[in-house]
């Protein structure tokens, strides 16, 4: 069975590539994981607002062509059909969802979306680090829900690289490059040190 890997540069099936190209406005031949830049697009990624190439899959029923974002429940119940379908898959996880039953499959997704039901609900910060550092997930990690400017700085550091943002002041700040942030970090996050991290805390034992 052909399986799409999380690595964006990994080969994909021809059918999947065609599906993806078809759904991207002005889509090139190369299957990208990012939508086209659009100032009104819902997703902030790679320095621009973009259209969302993924369609949200309903809880059950037929799926159209193109990349789909499926909730964990559907993934667990329709896993075989979803894989057979051959198109790029995204996985949506509610805050607090355990990862044990998807741990072996994270490499099959090109997108994992983690929900922030309220700005103050910080569970997905830990989930993101587990996905990146424990399970080695390398695809798009998208923050969805109540995403506000003061969290985005933290979200980036724990591994998010895409943000679904509806809050108007946050969109303005992102677009203008005006997130007021502290660019020095006292603590390393992840397996390797980050730039800006205080040097002694990132020093390994050996």
């Amino acid at each position, binding site marked *: 069975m052909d399986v799409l890997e999380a690595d964006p540069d990994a080969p994909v099936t021809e059918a999947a590539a065609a599906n993806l190209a078809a759904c991207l406005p002005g889509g090139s031949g190369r299957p990208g994981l990012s939508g086209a830049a659009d100032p009104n697009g819902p997703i902030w990624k790679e320095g621009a607002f973009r259209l969302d190439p993924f369609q949200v899959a309903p809880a059950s029923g037929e799926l159209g062509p193109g990349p789909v974002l499926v909730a964990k429940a559907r993934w667990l119940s329709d896993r075989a059909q979803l894989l057979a379908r051959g198109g790029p898959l995204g996985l949506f996880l509610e805050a607090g969802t355990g990862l044990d039953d998807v741990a072996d499959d994270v490499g099959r997704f090109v997108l994992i979306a983690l929900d922030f039901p309220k*700005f103050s609900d*910080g*569970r997905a*910060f830990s989930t993101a680090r587990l996905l990146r550092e424990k399970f080695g997930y390398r695809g798009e990690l998208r923050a969805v829900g109540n995403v506000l400017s*003061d969290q985005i700085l933290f979200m980036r550091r724990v591994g998010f690289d895409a943000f679904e943002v509806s809050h108007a002041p946050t969109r303005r700040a992102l677009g203008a490059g005006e997130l007021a942030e*502290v660019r020095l970090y*006292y*603590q390393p996050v992840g397996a390797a040190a980050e730039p800006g991290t205080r040097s002694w805390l990132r*020093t390994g034992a050996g």
Partner: protein
Amino acid sequence: MYRYDEFDAEFVRQRVAQFRDQVQRRLRGELTEDEFKPLRLKNGVYLQLHAYMLRIAIPYGTLSARQLRKLAHLARTYDRGFGHFTTRQNLQFNWPKLSDIPDILDELAEVEMHAIQTSGNNVRNVTADHFAGATAEEVVDPRPYAEIIRQWSSLHPEFSFLPRKFKIGITASEHDRAAIQTHDIGLQLRRLADGGLGFAVWVGGGQGRTPYLAKKIRDQLPEADILSYIEAILRVYNLHGRRDNIHKARIKILINSIGADVFAAEVEAEWARIKDGVLKLPPAEIERIAGYFAAPAFAARPPPAGLRPADRSFDRWVTRNSHAHKQPGYAIVTITLKPIGGIPGDASAAQMEAIAELAERFSFAEVRVSHEQNLVLPHVRLGDLWAVYQELKRIGLAEANAGLVTDIIACPGLDYCALANARSIPIAQRISARLAPRQEQVGELKIKISGCINACGHHHVGAIGILGVEKRGEEHYQLLLGGSGAEDAALASITGPGFSPDGIVDAVETVVDTYLKLRTGPQEAFLAAYTRLGAQPFKEALYGRA
């Protein structure tokens, strides 16, 4: 003590700039109070009954004379000439204008201070034994580890939106002055079985409406692993702590619902994965931070104390308010901010300046803040005690009452706090005035008063605890007995029906009278007598025979 390098200074500067921007957006009306609230709470700014309140971090309770002078200046310039020292070794200003707060933070940054994470659902100011670095009882000074934890937890990207606030306390002595068993994480620095330094780790202590003492989940944690172990604890808590009910969101509730052993197993599993990663502390770096806390240049043989006038009140003060120092010829001096009938923890700008000067002249420019709302001069030569005492008398802070019934902990209560149900301060003042004449006779007895169930006044661990509640629109006070926050930690039990504001003062006196009548002698302290006698004789004295 710790000194900022360029990294620390720039970090605080950027944080103040970020907060200044947030305040300006609020003042321009671009942010509603609801939107502003989570931002200001990340920086110690509360909206109280009458005004904003700013809570300034005093990391592990260590202050320099220069910093204390700055706090005095801020009190005079931006507040009403007072500051209030809290039960978490912080300082609160109760009357700053919101528009002034960024300027206050700029001034604080000049003396390497800030208000970062003194509120909000994140790791709060790390507290420590207020005698750290001076007491002979400790294995080593715990403050370097507190500083390492402070740095690591500052604006932590994963743990800035925890289910609830998170408090870490650390001691390095068997005698626990840091109340580690009432903290979310309590750390006891100790010598491990293999001869190295490390920690016993306690989790899940806390007061509030559902008090729990912490459970020990690890007896021997090597010092190099302290950050990875704390990270594992916080990750398990962040993922599994309750978020549906603010009153059940602390880690203590999680631990007591799943069991300390299950919680510990989760932590150990996560820790096993990360313990040899980037958080492993290199010995050279522990040493480097410890270097900031090197002991001052003590005189090897300070000149003996000279003759001084016979003065019984000075004798009493030395007996009560000084503590053995690790360096022969020196003493640790407690300055209680508890003058008889005064407001616990308050200090005027003039008092702060006078104490700063005392520190400069007699204590290597160091001051400590205790969680019992007192100040400490950690390194005073025995020969200087008389001079220190004279100056403290001049500023009204020479009461010889450390640990006695008038050394009362009280939260700000309904005089200031938006959460309070009843006033704490006037009750403390009246009890202090009532019992002062007999405090020597009564001996060690800790009274702790909270103006609401959130327990900022630590009433659950008072030998006598008082909890203010509201009953049919009136202030009403419950009485608790038998608590301790030290190494013999225990939660106090409620005696029975509560009392009016007048009645609670009488009730405390009744408890004290009962103790004096029933103790085997002055050598049997209140808690020992209570343990021996049980609650019954006290209840009978309070409520009559059932």
